[in-house]
């Protein structure tokens, strides 16, 4: 069909694919090795009302439904990109949910709270936070950060610059 060539079902969600009831030992070992790094990026990029482990779990499940982790050239990069994308999507949904909650005047005290300066950083989009974390905290080169987040190096540099500027402005406002 015209135009349909670019459009297909997502095989990751195809029930006709065989289900996997257990992981291979090599996959368990790989998950154990990657877990700390994945959890850190999930904690940085994810919304405060989502447990980092839940993001890691969702990213791994989605990836494993496609195939074995050993088939990936760079499992860490792939999974980190997946986590940041999931965090971005959830941020949108949560933003609307929070607004709906606000309209209904429902008690929001269940939401975790953080100091104002941390909240200022959380106001940054997930990808901005992830870039700053990778570059500034982990010391990852821009080229590798770009690879992990599925962006060009130029775009990564530009986004990092904007993120620094936004964060600096927010922190300056908080600092008076």
């Amino acid at each position, binding site marked *: 069909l015209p*135009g349909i060539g670019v459009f297909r079902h997502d095989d990751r969600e195809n029930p006709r694919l065989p289900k996997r009831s257990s*992981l291979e030992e090599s996959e368990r070992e790989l998950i154990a090795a990657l877990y700390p790094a994945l959890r850190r990026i999930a904690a940085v990029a994810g919304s405060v009302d989502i447990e980092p482990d839940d993001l890691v*779990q969702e990213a791994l499940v989605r990836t494993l439904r496609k195939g074995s982790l050993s088939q990936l050239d760079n499992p860490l990069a792939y999974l980190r990109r997946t986590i940041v994308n999931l965090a971005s999507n959830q941020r949108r949904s949560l933003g609307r949910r929070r607004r*709906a909650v606000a309209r209904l005047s429902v008690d929001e005290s269940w939401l975790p709270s953080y100091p104002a300066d941390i909240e200022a950083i959380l106001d940054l989009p997930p990808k901005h936070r992830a870039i700053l974390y990778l570059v500034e905290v982990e010391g990852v080169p821009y080229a590798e950060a770009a690879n992990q987040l599925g962006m060009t190096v130029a775009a990564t540099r530009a986004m990092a610059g904007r993120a620094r500027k936004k964060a600096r402005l927010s922190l300056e406002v908080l600092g008076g």
Partner: protein
Amino acid sequence: VADFIGKLQTLSVRGTPVGVEELIERIEAELAGDPLIVVPQRRKGIVMTKTDQSVTSKRPGPGRGLGWMVAAFVAILIVGGSLIVFGGNEGEVADQDTVPTPTTTPTAITGSFLLDLETGEQTPLPEPFTDAFFLAPSPDGARLYAVTCCSSSDVAKVANVDGSEARTLDPSGSLSYYMGRWSPDGTKIVYQATLGGTHEIGNLFVEDLVSGEQTQITEYEATVAPNNFLFPTFGEDGESVYFHLPRWEEDIEYDVWSVPSTGGEPTLVMEDAAQWVPLLEEAGAFVLPADDHFVGPRMEIVTSEGRETLVEATGILSPSASPDGSRIVYSDDNADIYIVDVAAGEPTKVADGYNASWLDNDTLVVVTD
């Protein structure tokens, strides 16, 4: 920078780790249980016939309503209710004075309202526009297409702006007609006909409001997508319809396509683009998609130099050009409505709301809930 790094480090260890063993247990349980997946059977396109005012849809097979709900982010646009399009008399253009008399209510309007951009005055829209999810004014500003979202009972209607002479576009109610947009001459509407409350793509149809003739202009097989709205819109000459389609690679990307408004073979207009806004012949603005979604971090404009950034924002949604083509209104992820000048590129917040479009060059139709 040191202070900032410290805060990021603090953030990176938040929460309570479950540990690797429990994480693996959870993953294996989810993989084994596979609780999320139901994909509708592929089937032939929707067959539609129309007799007088009635539309009959023949949809083969079961599987409707079983769209997989894996991607919760579609819920951005799906809050429940029905998609309702309200329209006016067939072929009859109402006078401008059908616009309701402005009230003095300045703020806190819920539902839909008209916003006078010169005075800031907000005028609540009457039934049946109050619970609309999406509204589209006719080019003459006399009528509105409206739709609520998103359930199997969604209905699309067209009515005069004062709410009179409302007409349901699909009296049978078997399909929902989403994201309708008017042709430049105001005689036709293009919409996405699909099963309400599902993630099915459906197909695009053009309905002649004078004759009642309904033409299917795309032939896509029934299938699903996490974000299934295609945002169809007529080109400036009314001869073509622009829309975007998802494309699965490692992640979901979006491209803009066009198809003749009488039906035919779609052609690719722009890769990595969504929510096309016609501005000039074969030119326009579009949203750069991001993160598996057609909302984007940037609106770009097509110029003789190529693609240029017009405005950056978080989650640009539902852009629409003013009748004179000089400005574009859009909403962002904070449910704020902005207008950006196409020449200057300076956005200005004008209201709170989920989407907005132009009744005329000085008046917006805003949906807030």
